[in-house]
């Protein structure tokens, strides 16, 4: 069997780990693993196609999203947040899991309607990309905690990159570089925002923000 589809299946599983994570530490670990898997998919594609862009892209993902961003997040967490604290959903965890399953099904159905122009990756990978995108967006909307909402956004971004890999594997490296660096900037900005929020309301729980303060 192709290693890409196996890696992609793991990629999807790790995204579910991100959905059920109760602790920030677990969520960051899941994001890191997800980024490594995405880089692995790009590198496995390089082995098949010998496109140098793919190798560079894979290495870029691994170094930035697999090493730099998780390290940044961990350091931020150590300074500002209690990483061991449990966080919850606006819905229950089992409901979140089932909604996640429904969303991934929706992703697969959506992918089956899109004709895949490249035949480098099997169609299942496109479905997995869309599913992860939806799962990430779902996490962003349904989580209470700001840090985990950011985690959802980052996961959605990873799904988007997988979709990009399927639809346009020969994208110019410059664009990819800009994309990935943007995420790094976004993480920095968002972590400053979260630190600021914690100073103001003593928590990163966004449901606290609905209270009026005089």
């Amino acid at each position: 069997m192709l290693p890409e589809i196996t890696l992609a299946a793991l990629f999807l599983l790790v995204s579910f780990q991100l959905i059920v994570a109760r602790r920030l530490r677990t969520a960051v670990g899941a994001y890191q693993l997800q980024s490594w898997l995405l880089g692995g998919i790009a590198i496995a594609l390089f082995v098949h196609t010998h496109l140098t862009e793919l190798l560079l892209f894979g290495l870029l993902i691994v170094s930035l999203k697999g090493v730099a961003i998780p390290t940044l997040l961990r350091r931020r967490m150590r300074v500002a947040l209690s990483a061991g604290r449990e966080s919850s959903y606006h819905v229950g965890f089992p409901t979140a899991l089932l909604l996640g399953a429904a969303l991934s099904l929706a992703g697969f159905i959506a992918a089956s309607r899109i004709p895949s122009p490249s035949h480098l990756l099997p169609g299942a990978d496109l479905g997995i990309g869309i599913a992860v995108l939806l799962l990430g967006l779902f996490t962003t909307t349904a989580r209470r905690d700001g840090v985990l909402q950011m985690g959802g956004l980052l996961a959605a971004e990873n799904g988007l990159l997988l979709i990009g890999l399927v639809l346009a594997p020969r994208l110019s490296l410059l664009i990819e570089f800009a994309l990935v660096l943007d995420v790094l900037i976004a993480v920095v900005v968002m972590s400053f925002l979260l630190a600021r929020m914690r100073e103001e309301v003593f928590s990163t729980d966004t449901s606290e923000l609905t209270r009026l303060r005089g």
Partner: protein
Amino acid sequence: MAPDHEDRKAFRELGDGASLDRVHLGCHVLADAVGQVVALLVVLALAPLLKGVIETGKARLQSRRGPSPLQPYRDLRKLFGKDRSTTPDASFIFRVAPYVVFATPIAFAVLIPVLTAAPLSWAFMADMVGSGFVIGIGGFFTNLAAMDSGSVYGGLGASRSRFVSSLAEPTFIVVFFAVGFISGGTVPFVVNQTLFTSSAAITPSHALIAAAFLMVVLAETGRLPIDNPNSAQELSMIESSRLFEYAGSDQALMEWGGAMKLFVVLVVWLNVLVFPPGLAGAVTVPAFAVAIATLVGKMLAAAFLIVVIESALAKIRIMRVPEYLGGSFVLAFLGLVLSTLGR
């Protein structure tokens, strides 16, 4: 669901050529019966050993000496030597339940590939869903008997075990759908042949389904993330609190039946979903010797896996059980989805 004639025909063709003369057929039937009986004896004899090996392994991993792997046999002998006692409130269900619990794993073992890769004569009595019902009867009667005994803990255990089983059921059904989808049949022997021969390597959907099935097997047989089999605290028990009112030979039958249930369900996991090689192709003495030896090897590996899982994980809170089983459902569901895409 009635077993298919198509499946049966397929296997006549898969088998060692159609030898249609009567004498040969007669030999075939006899050999089938012998093979069936040997498989049942293997289940009866090895099930307590599996339980013993798991206990010893867990003790060793915790740096204890632990009981000998043969301890369950000694327990059974001791229990069979004792008198039965029944609560005065109990009805006939309480007295019948041990026999049902003892008999259902044996009936189940007829339907699954314990030792042979090709189906024996009784294998087409039920498919995977049907055999799920068969194994479910045992749990149903245990629950009835636990409530019948009038003990508080029995009722508590029965209610909790229904809670767990009702959440495990969707996963079982999705797993059956998925393997049925991949292999085009739901008789365990067909499934095992197709999964075994169609692709040499492990596909993601196959791995997901196997993982989901193991998760529900652990939940259904009262193993650790859900229920601690070694617990001595009545309030936290699920499985063992249902057996509280039994004594003597009744208790022996209940415990033996429970051990066999774990054994046969693990046989399904091993021989149908994970690693079918080693099964006997025909009913001959050397083939069966090899099959029994590989089954013991596979069971040791499974026991080791269970020991590691049970030592690594703590029991989860009862209200988090839906998350665990919901997770297994999602795994099975993704396996199903990926299997439809992968073709």
